[in-house]
């Protein structure tokens, strides 16, 4: 009995639960007799599809009543998506797109799950200039599309819209309308995109492009660092080779004396260690200084790496 009640409750709530996955579009339109009393809603999976006419994009359709009213529930995503509402003239295929003339037959809108969008065509105005309400994003979209249709709208305006829009979809669409950006503008756009959801389907292409730009900068920075590191290594290597070349001009006895001096022994201690006269040590030391181009014992430090430890040394 308890399961039966639960089942009944779920059955009653099913439409409401199902609506949660959908959005609703209603509207009022006045069309002359040349138009069919049908409307269609297309889902635009990306900005590239905005001017694609294909039945595969149609996700909902319905009839317009004699008073011009229509409504439909259509499948919507959790996040904002772009849709296109269009009407057709009598005899035209369902998937018909009319662009540029006063007979423009479509209008774009943004919706997400549970949104209630309303369309109203003002008599005398083209469909594309009709009002779409029900979501804050749509006022931004309408303003953007109006500016995009104007040739004089520049990159800074689009970037400014992207910066101020609370809708990522509007922001991404604004960025997609930019062209031939300066380096400064590119940086601004990169900063904006860093705030956006990296998984936004509408931004995939744009984000990829700007990440590629960032990667290019990283590769360049890495290349410069690598070149600097290699240059430094080369410099140190050749410096060492030059010192080694000078070191090899010493006789074995002179090398032994340098080793003893670097171990902290005085000339007298060197003489004792090598069992030679102090004057001989002094002669060797003078010869060593002359060959190595040094003036004192401290300068011999740079040759310490070449000293081979000798037994008893």
């Amino acid at each position: 009995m308890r399961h039966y009640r639960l089942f009944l409750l779920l059955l009653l709530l099913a439409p409401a639960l199902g609506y949660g996955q959908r959005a609703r579009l209603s509207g009022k339109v006045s069309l002359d007799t040349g138009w069919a009393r049908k409307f269609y809603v297309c889902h635009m999976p990306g900005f590239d599809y905005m001017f694609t006419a294909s039945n595969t994009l149609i996700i909902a359709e319905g009839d317009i009543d004699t008073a011009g009213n229509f409504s439909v529930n259509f499948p919507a995503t959790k996040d904002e998506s772009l849709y296109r509402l269009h009407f057709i003239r009598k005899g035209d295929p369902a998937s018909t797109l009319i662009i540029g003339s006063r007979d423009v037959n479509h209008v774009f809108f943004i919706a997400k799950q549970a949104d209630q969008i309303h369309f109203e065509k003002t008599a005398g105005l083209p469909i594309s200039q009709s009002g779409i309400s029900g979501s804050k994003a749509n006022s931004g979209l309408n303003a953007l599309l109006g500016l995009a249709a104007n040739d004089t709208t520049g990159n800074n305006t689009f970037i400014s819209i992207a910066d101020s829009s609370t809708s990522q979809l509007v922001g991404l669409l604004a960025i997609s309308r930019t062209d031939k950006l300066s380096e400064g503008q590119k940086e601004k756009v990169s900063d904006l995109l860093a705030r956006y959801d990296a998984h936004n389907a509408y931004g995939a292409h744009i984000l990829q492009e700007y990440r590629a730009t960032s990667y290019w900068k990283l590769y360049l920075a890495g290349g410069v660092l690598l070149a600097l590191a290699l240059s430094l290594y080369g410099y140190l290597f050749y410096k060492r080779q030059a010192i080694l070349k000078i070191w090899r001009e010493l006789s074995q006895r002179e090398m032994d004396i340098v080793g003893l001096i670097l171990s902290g022994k005085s000339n007298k201690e060197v003489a004792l260690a090598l069992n030679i006269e102090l004057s001989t040590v002094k002669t060797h030391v003078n010869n060593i200084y002359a060959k190595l181009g040094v003036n004192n014992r401290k300068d011999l430090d740079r040759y310490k790496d070449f000293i081979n430890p000798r037994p008893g040394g």
Partner: protein
Amino acid sequence: MLVLGAVQAKAQVIKGSIELRDSAINRSIPIEVPAGAKSVKYDVKVYADVGEIKVTLTEPSTKKSFNVTIGTKASSTGHEPSKAEMSDDVSVKIPGNWTFYIRAENATGTISYEFEILKP
């Protein structure tokens, strides 16, 4: 099979039609807009019974006046056709070469176009 009938009546008007029968096409039609031209008026109609057809009109500034794709969907009764109509009168800001691109693959349908270059 491809049937092409392009007519250039005067330097100011370029018009033609292309009929596609399960055809592939990749064509660019240059439209030379001389200095002093006031506007370019165009009327392009594309209809696809089968397959996909893409038409693009680019201005000298590389801006696209339109970039439209129409595609069809197979159904139990054959294919559901698609149609697009583009028409406008665009003022000429930069004279030079406009280009009308047509691309189609395994498409059956028709493309008709007319470009009129208006002088003051």
